[in-house]
C-alpha cells in the first residue's frame, strides 16, 4: 500500500510547516542533540527545512511557458519550453495576431496520485523582443466554464501604438492558489 503524504499538493498553497514535519515545540528525543552532523538530522534542521519549504511553496510559480504565436501562417502557438509543478503543456489556441489563449486542466495529480484543483490567480506575460521598438504583453485570467476555477489565460501582445504584434514570442508565468 502506497503512502498518502500529509497536506495537499503544493499548487493548492495550503501546506504549513507541519505538513513537512515541523512543529513549534519539536525537540530532539530526550533533548539529546545531533551527535554527528554528517549522519544525523536534528529537530532544528528539520524545522528549518519545513518552514523554508512552506514559505517558498506559497509563492512558487505553477507554470512557466515560453511560446511563439503563429500568425504568418495562422495556427496554434508553438510552445518551446514548459515548466510546471504538474502536468504537461497546456492547450494553446490562436485568437488573432499576437493573441492566444491557453487552457489548463482544472486539476492535477502529484507524484503520489493526490489530485487537487489548480485555480489560476495570477499571471505575468513578457514579450521577448526580437526587433527594435516597444512591445507590451497583457493577460486575462478567466473561468471560461464558470465552475469557480480559473483555468484560462489569454495573452495579447501589442506595440507602442496598440497594434497587434504578429508572431510574438512570449514568456508566461502563472500562479495558482
Amino acid at each position, binding site marked *: 500500500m502506497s503512502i498518502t503524504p500529509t497536506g495537499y499538493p503544493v499548487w493548492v*498553497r*495550503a501546506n*504549513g*510547516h507541519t505538513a513537512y514535519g*515541523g512543529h*513549534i515545540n*519539536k*525537540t*530532539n*528525543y530526550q533533548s*539529546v*542533540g*545531533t*551527535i554527528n552532523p554528517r*549522519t*544525523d*538530522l*536534528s*529537530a532544528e534542521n*528539520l*524545522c528549518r*527545512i519545513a*518552514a*523554508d*519549504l*512552506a*514559505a*517558498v511553496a*506559497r*509563492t*512558487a*510559480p505553477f507554470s512557466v511557458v515560453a511560446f511563439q504565436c503563429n500568425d504568418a501562417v495562422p495556427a496554434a502557438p508553438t510552445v518551446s519550453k514548459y515548466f510546471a509543478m504538474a502536468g504537461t503543456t497546456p492547450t494553446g489556441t490562436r485568437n488573432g495576431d499576437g493573441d492566444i489563449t491557453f487552457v489548463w486542466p482544472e486539476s492535477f495529480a502529484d507524484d503520489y496520485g493526490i489530485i487537487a484543483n489548480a485555480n489560476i*490567480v*495570477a*499571471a*505575468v*506575460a*513578457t514579450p521577448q523582443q526580437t526587433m527594435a521598438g516597444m512591445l*507590451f*504583453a*497583457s*493577460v*486575462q*485570467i478567466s473561468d471560461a466554464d464558470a465552475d469557480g476555477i480559473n483555468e484560462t489565460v489569454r495573452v*495579447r501582445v*501589442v506595440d*507602442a*501604438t*496598440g497594434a497587434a504584434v504578429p508572431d510574438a514570442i512570449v514568456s508566461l*508565468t502563472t*500562479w495558482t*492558489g
Partner: protein
Amino acid sequence: MPLGGFAPCPLPLGGTVLDGLLVEQHARLSTDLRSIVQTAPFAVVHFNTSSATPLAYLGQNDVGVLAAPTITSLGVGDARLLWDVSYLDEYDNAWAVDLSFAVACGEFAGGVQNAYAVVELETAQQIRVRTYSIVAGVPVATDVSVSLVVW
C-alpha cells in the same frame, strides 16, 4: 533500519528508500531547497489599481488576502502597495521585509483591449504600480487588474 518511534530526532540518515532518508536524498533535498529559496518570490499579488482590496495574495509570510499589503489607490491606473516592515514566521521569529525586485503585468478586460504595468520600488516595503492602456496609439492611464511579483 528502525526509525520512527525507535529512532526519533535526531533522525539518523540512512536506512532504505522505504523506511529512511538516505544521505544522498538529504543532500539533494538540501541543495535543491537552497536553490529554490534563493530565487523564490517573496509575494505574488493580484489586485486592481482602482481598488484598495487585493483579489488574491500568495506570500512567503502567508496566503490569502488578509495577509496582503495595504493597497492605496493614488488615482486612475496608479496604486501603492505597502507591506509591514517585518512579519512573523511560523515559529514566531520576526523577519524584515526588504523588497529588491518587482515585475508586473496588466490584465485586459471589458473595453480595455490591452494593458501594461510599470513598477516603482519606492522603499524596501513599498511599491507603486502604474497601469496604462494604449488608446489611439497613445498610452493612457487606465484602471486594470495587475499581477505583481516581488522578491
